[in-house]
């Protein structure tokens, strides 16, 4: 980027100052790298005993995580079975995605392809507002309002269950999916659409057969980013899922997720105890899952950029 070199008559002191400033700015940029590395180091460090400390492994180890079907970390004989948490997380996230993906992608298509400018002026701020609702408020809404509505429909035994949490979580991730998908659709060059319309295709045929395929990598990136958010989201599931660690396939059973277990239990554990390490292990697991999904999403964004740039 440096096309212009400092000229010779600039005093040496000034050059030194410039170098110092450049170094400081570079350090600022490095802070992002340092932050990510420190997160990895310190979350995995506290999870370490689960994998390598014999004393901790008497209570919590990889084998033990799958040897018992129960998550009962408090009690005479604590049980750290991950199955209920893993199935619980899967269940809630699956419901959230089933709810959010069709809505968000269809709305993005509507906004990018069909909506008159005036309608978009209502839709876009509404989505931004949805994005601005803090997750604790979404959890509150699910707990106080949504749960009762859904119970009225499903007549479920438990008021707070995977369905309630899943739908609230879906609401939380709609803005992520919508925004990325809509940006991708709008980045499809005008010429693509004009060519399609000029050949006699109707607007919806153009949207379905031209714009969506062209933007598919971006839509996929949006879905993946939404997925990563759903897996890691804490407050909504903590407040709306009921938090009972039950392994079942029934969406009307209460569930406990990985993230909610950390949030609910960490404040009361003894630092360095097997329970403490296990909760950090759950955090490390969440980090790894979301990290991989995000890397995949990044690859899709890159693919989209190349495809549209090559056009």
């Amino acid at each position, binding site marked *: 980027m440096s096309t212009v070199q400092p000229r010779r008559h600039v005093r040496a002191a000034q050059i030194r100052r410039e170098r110092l400033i450049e170094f400081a*700015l570079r350090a600022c940029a490095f802070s992002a790298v340092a932050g990510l590395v420190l997160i990895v180091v310190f979350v995995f460090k506290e999870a370490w005993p689960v994998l390598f400390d014999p004393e901790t492994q008497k209570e919590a180890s990889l084998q033990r995580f799958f040897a018992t079907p129960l998550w009962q970390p408090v009690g005479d004989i604590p049980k750290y079975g991950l199955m209920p948490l893993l199935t619980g997380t899967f269940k809630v996230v699956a419901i959230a995605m089933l709810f959010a993906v069709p809505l968000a992608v269809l709305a993005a298509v509507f906004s990018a392809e069909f909506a008159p400018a005036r309608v978009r002026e209502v839709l876009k701020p509404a989505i931004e507002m949805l994005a601005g609702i803090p997750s*604790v408020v979404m959890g509150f809404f699910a707990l106080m309002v949504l749960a009762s509505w859904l119970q009225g429909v499903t007549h479920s035994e438990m008021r707070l269950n995977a369905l309630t949490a899943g739908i609230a979580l879906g609401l939380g991730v709609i803005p992520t999916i919508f925004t990325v998908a809509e940006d991708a659709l709008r980045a499809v060059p005008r010429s693509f659409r004009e060519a399609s319309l000029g050949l006699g295709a109707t607007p919806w045929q153009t949207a379905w057969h031209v714009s969506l395929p062209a933007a598919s990598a971006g839509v996929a990136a949006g879905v993946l980013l939404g997925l990563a958010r759903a897996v890691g989201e804490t407050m909504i599931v903590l407040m709306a899922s009921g938090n009972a660690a039950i392994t079942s396939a029934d969406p009307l059973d209460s569930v406990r997720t990985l993230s909610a277990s950390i949030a609910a239990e960490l404040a009361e554990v003894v630092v360095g105890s097997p329970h403490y390490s296990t909760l950090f292990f759950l955090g490390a697991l969440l980090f790894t899952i979301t990290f991989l999904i995000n890397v995949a999403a990044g690859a899709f964004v890159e693919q989209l950029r190349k495809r549209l740039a090559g056009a």
Partner: protein
Amino acid sequence: MSGTTLDPVPDAASAPLPVRERRPDVAGFSFTALSGFAALLIVLMVAVILGEVVWNGWSTVTWEFLAGVPREGMTKGGIFPAIYGTLLLVVLMVIALIPFGVGAAVWLHLYAAQDSWFTKTVRFAVHNLAGVPSIVYGLFGLGFFIQFLGHNVDRVLGLDVVWGQPALMWAALTLALLNLPVVIVTTEEALRTVPRDQREASLALGATRWQTVRHVLVPQALPGILTGAILAVARGAGEVAPILFTGAAYFLPFLPKLPTDQFMELGYHVFVLATQSPDIDATRPLLYGTVLVLLALTFLLNLTAILLRARLRARLLGRG
């Protein structure tokens, strides 16, 4: 392209021009209608959530509520300590965050060789920091700031437990890291709106790079930089998971004075009122009132950011 609607003309010379079939286009109509319906549904759900909060919270939000302290097991009184704690938290966060975020964006924009591995690593880190779940930030805050930094500061200074416990400062630093990608991305976007020729004119006139940054780039990109800061504040005021173990308190009889004090916070207060109250019916009005205050705060901030960004984009378009 589906074959049914675009059949090739059999004999181009003699056949009459193909007339588009006038059958009602059921598939097309349903697809368009469905997408419109999805959009409508989302708007309606936003309206329902906001309506619910405003409708039920409105009457609670009085001066006594805003300026009072919680009383009688949090079934009466106000939320002033939570508002105060939230403001203090975001102010500290912004002080820690802005220099790093803006500095990093300036470096990425003006100094960085875009193809170097270091630049790529920074961009990779920014992208992935943005995707780390907020609860993991909470774990990091506890593991790094409190257990590692705090404890070691205490040990070196020969103190009892002063720094090595949940505190306002650690929560603010945790949130600062959480929002670092937001500020870097929005600031860089803002810097890109400054026309390249102005930057080059400044350099060609003999200004150093730093002079160009200070007198050309940053002043012009200021609205965008502010946007990033405001978005970070809005998000900081609403995130609860990262502060669960790094400093937020269930209830405090005093206001925080030192960075090592714990604090009450609006979002955490909502969580406490909604889930830990022994008598939810008595707490309900306070709960709705608190949610309304929190929502109003984040929306005002978001709205300001959206307006600033719109102005910035208009300027960018105006230049062509």
